[in-house]
């Protein structure tokens, strides 16, 4: 695999392989010296056309812990704000010798354009493209669930038999799409709960609930993934008010209490506390939100390692 563009491209074998590498990287991250020389001499550009805190920092940490040279490129205050096209920006970075580009872009398909339109010949890692895909988020969610379920015996395991309920703005969520693809590939059953206005997969065979309480009682999720709701969606008449959304689809303590005993709660962040999730739940025992964040670094190290270290090194693993 040269690029990581979509969780759809990750088959079962590769998924397990990446999660297993990530488990090793997690060991690096918990040691005193959080650095290995794997990518020494490689230059990685983080090309961010959208504001991002956690994803950008997570990638940057991952790159630095692998000893790569890191260049951060934010679209604001750059030649992009002078109207430079993605093609020209990418070709410029490639001409300067970038060994990989991590891209976050507002347009769905931007990562595929960089990888496949013949502009440049550099590994592309999709850090979120529009409302399309965010594959490293799916990997870190899968990793977090697997580690929660299996702990130190996680290596080689998949998510067979696990029920995952994704709740909220599915229509505009690259996180939902990526998890739908990867978690299914790894054997989990994925269901959705959302106002019907925010659910685009009507023709699909996913279990879908327009009522969160019903979803919890019928689907019996082992994990509930709450998505961020952007309040500007109200302008598009997707839902009438924050109050009604929180009442119908927010995860509060009462609803969380209806979950099975060992069920966990995930959120890709940033959270709207009080809207899709209350503080009691976000900070509560079931919450794996901070595990997700720390696992994000390990998973991104695994992806970079897999894509960028030379094939001989991989063969020696």
């Amino acid at each position, binding site marked *: 695999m040269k690029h990581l563009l979509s969780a759809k491209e990750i088959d079962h074998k590769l998924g397990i392989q990446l999660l297993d590498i990530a488990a090793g990287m997690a060991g690096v991250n918990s040691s005193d010296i959080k650095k290995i020389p794997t990518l020494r001499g490689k230059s990685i550009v983080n090309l961010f056309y959208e504001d991002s805190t956690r994803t950008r920092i997570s990638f940057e940490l991952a790159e630095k812990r692998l000893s790569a040279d890191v260049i951060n490129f934010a679209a604001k205050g750059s030649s992009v704000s002078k109207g430079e096209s993605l093609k020209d920006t990418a070709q410029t970075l490639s001409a300067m010798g970038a060994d990989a580009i991590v891209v976050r872009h507002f347009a769905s398909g931007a990562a595929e354009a960089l990888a496949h339109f013949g502009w440049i010949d550099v590994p592309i890692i999709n850090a979120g493209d529009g409302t*399309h895909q965010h594959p490293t988020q799916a990997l870190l969610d899968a990793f977090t669930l697997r580690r929660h379920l299996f702990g130190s015996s996680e290596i080689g395991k998949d998510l067979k038999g696990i029920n995952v309920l994704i709740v909220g703005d599915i229509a505009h969520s690259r996180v939902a799409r990526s998890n739908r693809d990867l978690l299914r590939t790894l054997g989990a059953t994925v269901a959705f709960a959302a106002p019907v206005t925010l659910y685009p997969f009507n023709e699909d065979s996913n279990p879908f609930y327009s009522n969160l309480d019903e979803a919890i009682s019928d689907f019996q999720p082992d994990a509930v993934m709450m998505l961020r709701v952007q309040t500007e969606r109200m302008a598009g008449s997707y839902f009438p008010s924050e109050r009604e959304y929180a009442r119908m689809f927010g995860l509060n303590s009462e609803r969380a209490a209806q979950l099975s005993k060992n069920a966990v709660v995930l959120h890709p962040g940033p959270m709207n506390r009080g809207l899709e999730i209350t503080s009691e739940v976000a900070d509560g025992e079931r919450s794996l939100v901070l595990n997700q964040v720390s696992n994000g670094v390990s998973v991104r190290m695994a992806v970079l390692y897999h894509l960028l270290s030379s094939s001989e090194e991989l063969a020696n693993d």
Partner: protein
Amino acid sequence: MIDFLIKGAKLASGESIDFGIDSGFVVEPATARTNIDASGLVALSGFVDLHTHLREPGFEHSETILSGSKVAALGGFTAVHAMPNTNPVADNAGVVEQVYLRGRQAGYVHVQPIGAVTVGLEGKQLSEMSSMANSSANVSMFSDDGKCVSDALLMRRALEYARTFDAVIAQHAQEPRLTENAQMNEGLVSAELGLTGWPAVAEEAIIARDVLLAEQIGARLHICHVSTAGSVELIRWAKAKGIRVTAEVTPHHLMFTDEKARGFQPVYKVNPPLRLNEDVLALREALIDGTIDVIATDHAPHTAESKDCEWSLAAFGMLGLEAAASIAQSVLVDSGASTWERLEQVLSIAPARIAKLTNQGQGVAKGSPANLTLLDPAAKRSGAIQHSKSSNNPYASETLSGQVIHTFYSGVQTVSNSEIQNLETVID
């Protein structure tokens, strides 16, 4: 001595004939200055496109009246209808006359301007349709193509006003609120790709409204680039009621589905969007049974930079003039579902009738104007070869059936052995 003697061509009916061309008309065979062996070729009435973007004035870096005319001739066309979304917009007699004259100067096809329905295509105020109709450009078709005349009252007035000189309003059916920021057909593929969907109802709601308006007013309505099975049903219903509605379908909507959007290649980004397989099948059936009257290309050249980019930033539209006859041949003839006669209807006779072009669409018959094309139905060719100034060609990886070999416009050979002719030397 006559200009041309064409020997051994087959007409759409299957009849084999020899015929002459002289002084712009089809004549009895006789000794000629140029003999053309047309054995194995099909002779058809020259094609008439009701929907062409020639981009001039204003966007000459994509296409010009001259370059687009040549591309049309290579596709077997002898007339094209130039859409008014130029800069300046063709919303007054001055601009349509200019386009018409530039077409005559080019000389490869009849360039018939379509006038804008509203000033500046802004959907606010009717343009001076009557002045355009009475100008030397003789405009009989009006459209805000690219934009829908979405205001119901304005559409009613346009239909009423155009009725007084029996012009036709060609509607680009797209409810704007239902398609805000829409990028592709709304369905499972758009859901997976995370691109804003373009629901079928956005097209169908406008068609439903407009056929009812046309019925009440008794006006002539033409529906541009029909793309959904639901639209076909509405038009079928309207025609059965006797409403004066006609409809066109593009080559690409007869060929491709929204699956093409996977990979995000903007060459497949088009308005209306590529739809589902069931829509393609319904469109083909409607073309065969007469619910859809014509194939129109919606030939929409765009510069490389407006297509070699992120999908959501790319322009809508694709080339079509050079592929249209091949797609028609595949869908109607090679499929066994219909006939060469139907192909000649949908590419020539019906569009000429709708646009009231009396010198076009007259068939290949003695005494009729020599607007005709000879094509080789057995040829297989690469869809990658094309002659537009632009390269947004969706057929680049397709093998196309049939090739235009010769085209005659008003008795002048514009295409010979699939090569465009230099008209100055021909006319000398």
